[in-house]
């Protein structure tokens, strides 16, 4: 096992060392820190002790980076082997389950740890700027490393359990979301229990309250906030560090236990039909049935959008969510503090989030699945143009967003004070269109990146949006068009400003679509 483990680890590290882009990425990361440092040093002229502000920026950036990029990076550790059907080869090479798990996850963990380690000496410079101590810096980096261990192993577990990298990444995101909101929930429960008269003097009550304390303190985000407070002088090894590492080890153990049943019995090529039923099943009315006259819409609606069964499932879930929000708001002194008036806005936010999430997932799969299944050349051989294929596929995916879009539309009706005139005014607001444009560009960026990377197009797009929005002159133009006293909206009126935003949106999306088409053509010929 150790030979195999070392072989996998060495290979991963060699590959990492050989790839120029990895070094450039690290260089860019350090360069960004250097820029932040420069800015902090400039700030020192007019701001007292800018070290804390600098340190805080970098620590949060790291936490966000580890969360967003790490989800895609770690959750593909085993799924990529499943998708390429190479797990059997690794096992035949003498690697047992533990060896594969260690070899595949440790190398990735080391790569992320290296990224943290490389920043550390620069971060110590923050001490010279004032406002932060070495203890805080060390504590923050230890917290982040413990969090990385947890995230890596949660993702590894999902990677073992699920067949596709995308599904594993989605479930990792869900678990990490629970991890992020757990402290708030624990704090709320603790307050409620104390208000009910629970004390630490009663043994069992004390244990439950301790447990809630532990939950509250086990989140890295909570812990980072603690570390950032002035005068922080707590020990470095906190409950968060211990619980995160312990949680990581637990997940690793579970991944090891489940490796045999989940990986060895996996469907070949990591291909799953998802919620689709076959035409021979009893529920054949929910099967994809015969192809529509536009087969590309049919295919993407059924096989990416999830088809009729998933559509029905989503309607049920979003309906249940609505009922859940109503039920919570009817409960006096509920955890969220909602009343019936909040139902509309809360449901609207939830549906907007669901719509955005579903759209992002569809954008990451719309072309990536064709690349994964090597069907691009067969598609390009059709007597149809690339735009026809691309737009038809997009329509198929959009149809899959139906339930979330319906929920969102209904939630708009529930907003108190929403009138037709307000809706029209809102629709013509250039700021709204600027936001929609940003999201559309984000979706295009995801689709484009999915043609270049094997996994993690979504987090990569998330991080690239920063530089894209900084470098792209469209945003600067939007600032001119949009809000503010000197914006076009205040000079020309809202409609011309909105039309300008539409034109800009169209232009930017067109450029992205041209790039996607060119890349599809290139991939089809490979």
């Amino acid at each position: 096992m150790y030979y195999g483990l070392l072989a996998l680890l060495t290979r991963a590290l060699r590959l990492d060392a050989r790839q120029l882009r990895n070094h450039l990425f690290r260089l860019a990361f350090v360069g960004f820190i250097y820029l932040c440092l420069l800015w902090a040093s400039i700030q020192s002229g007019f701001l007292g002790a800018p070290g804390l502000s600098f340190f805080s920026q970098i620590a949060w950036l790291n936490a966000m980076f580890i969360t967003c990029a790490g989800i895609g990076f770690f959750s593909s550790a085993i799924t990529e082997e499943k998708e390429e059907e190479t797990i059997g080869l690794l096992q035949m090479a003498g690697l047992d389950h533990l060896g594969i798990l260690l070899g595949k996850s440790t190398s990735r963990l080391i790569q992320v740890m290296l990224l943290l380690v490389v920043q550390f000496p620069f971060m110590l410079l923050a001490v010279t700027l004032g406002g932060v101590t070495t203890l805080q810096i060390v504590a923050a980096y230890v917290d982040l490393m413990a969090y990385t261990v947890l995230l890596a192993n949660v993702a590894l577990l999902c990677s073992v359990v699920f067949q596709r990298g995308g599904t594993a990444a989605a479930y990792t995101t869900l678990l990490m979301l629970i991890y992020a909101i757990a402290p708030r929930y624990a704090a709320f429960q603790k307050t409620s229990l104390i208000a009910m008269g629970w004390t630490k003097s009663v043994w069992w009550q004390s244990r439950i309250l301790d447990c809630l304390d532990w939950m509250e303190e086990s989140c890295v985000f909570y812990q980072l906030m603690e570390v950032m407070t002035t005068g922080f002088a707590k020990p470095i090894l906190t409950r968060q560090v211990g619980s995160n590492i312990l949680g990581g080890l637990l997940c690793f153990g579970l991944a090891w236990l489940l490796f045999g049943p989940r990986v060895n019995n996996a469907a070949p090529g990591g291909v799953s039909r998802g919620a689709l039923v076959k035409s021979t099943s009893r529920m054949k009315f929910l099967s994809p049935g015969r192809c529509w006259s536009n087969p590309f819409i049919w295919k993407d609606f059924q096989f990416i959008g999830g088809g009729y069964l998933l559509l029905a499932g989503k309607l049920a879930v979003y309906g249940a969510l609505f009922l859940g929000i109503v039920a919570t708001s009817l409960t006096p002194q509920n955890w969220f503090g909602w009343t019936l008036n909040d139902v509309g806005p809360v449901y609207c936010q939830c549906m907007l989030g669901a719509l955005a999430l579903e759209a992002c997932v569809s954008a990451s799969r719309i072309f990536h699945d064709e690349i994964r299944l090597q069907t691009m050349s067969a598609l390009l051989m059709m007597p149809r143009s690339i735009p026809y294929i691309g737009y038809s596929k997009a329509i198929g995916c959009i149809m899959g967003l139906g339930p979330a879009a319906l929920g969102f539309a209904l939630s708009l009706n529930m907003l108190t004070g929403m009138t037709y005139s307000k809706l029209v005014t809102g629709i013509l607001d250039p700021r709204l269109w600027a936001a929609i444009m940003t999201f559309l560009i984000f979706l295009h960026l995801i689709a484009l990146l999915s043609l270049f990377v094997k996994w993690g197009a979504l987090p990569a797009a998330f991080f690239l949006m920063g530089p894209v929005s900084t470098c792209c002159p469209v945003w600067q133009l939007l600032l001119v068009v949009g809000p503010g006293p000197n914006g076009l909206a205040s000079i020309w009126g809202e409609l011309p400003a909105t039309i300008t935003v539409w034109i800009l949106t169209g232009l930017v999306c067109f450029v992205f679509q041209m790039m996607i088409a060119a890349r599809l053509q290139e991939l089809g010929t490979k």
Partner: protein
Amino acid sequence: MSNATNGSSPQPIIEVDDVVHSFKGRRALDHVSFKVMPKSLHGFVGPNGAGKTTSLKIICTLLCPQFGVVKVFGHDVVDEQKLVRRKIGFMPDHFSTYRQMTVYEYLDFFAAAYGLAFAQRTRVIDEVLALTDMDGRKNDLISGLSRGMQQRTSLARVLVNDPDLLLLDEPASGLDPRARIELMDILKALRSMGKTIFISSHILPELAELCDSVTIIDKGKVMYSGTMSGLQTSTNEYPTWRVTLATEVDGIIDRIKTLRGVVDADQVEGRPDYRVSYDWALTDTNNLLRSLLELDVPIVGFTEDKRHLNDAFMDLTTKGVK
């Protein structure tokens, strides 16, 4: 322009004329020219990296040639892509299947993509399923099929638009002997239906048995293009005949070499078979046979020594893996 015959000579289905194509400075195709005649089964062979897949991708309109002209059914593959695509079916060297679909859904999708109406689709799919012997598996998920079955599904997909020309890139690679033989039977059936088949393959014995014509390509250059019979006789400078004796005769090679017009003679190892090459200018086959009979040796066979495709391939292509 159609593939209809013009007078006595039929127009070629594929015309590749002086095509040059490079990837990152490496020349994949170097002034490649060949023709494929209608209703023929044309083999396309060459070592790995010889330029077979690049040629196929150019013919099937996926790649544009950097220099030269390629016409399929008389249509230029660059200017008349859609016309070409409607008449051809291309099966790449990978399965290119949506493995989460059933066989029927997969064929239905491609039939609809070719613009076939609903009723027509049903008929065509039933036909191609019957032809490829997949009708019993039509409701199976493609991911659950064996490699041979997936290859058949892929072939069925190529046939849904009833193409006149099939371009098959390594269709038999990775198949077991049974699946390979069954695939070859399907190809024979397709040829008998009047389809032109352009097949790139490494399985030379099967190609030799199936093909009417062949193109051998090496390092991006066409080494031979023409009929199989032409290949089997054309590459030697002198015609060669094989003389089979009932038993080995001592010193027979030296005696054969003394005959008029004979330029070379050697023995097939371990057997009383002798290869005799002669000069057309000095003798002919009749005279050679007459001279051999005069040697008074027990001749039991006298046949033209046609070289197998394997030998031609080995002679025409360079050694080593590129």
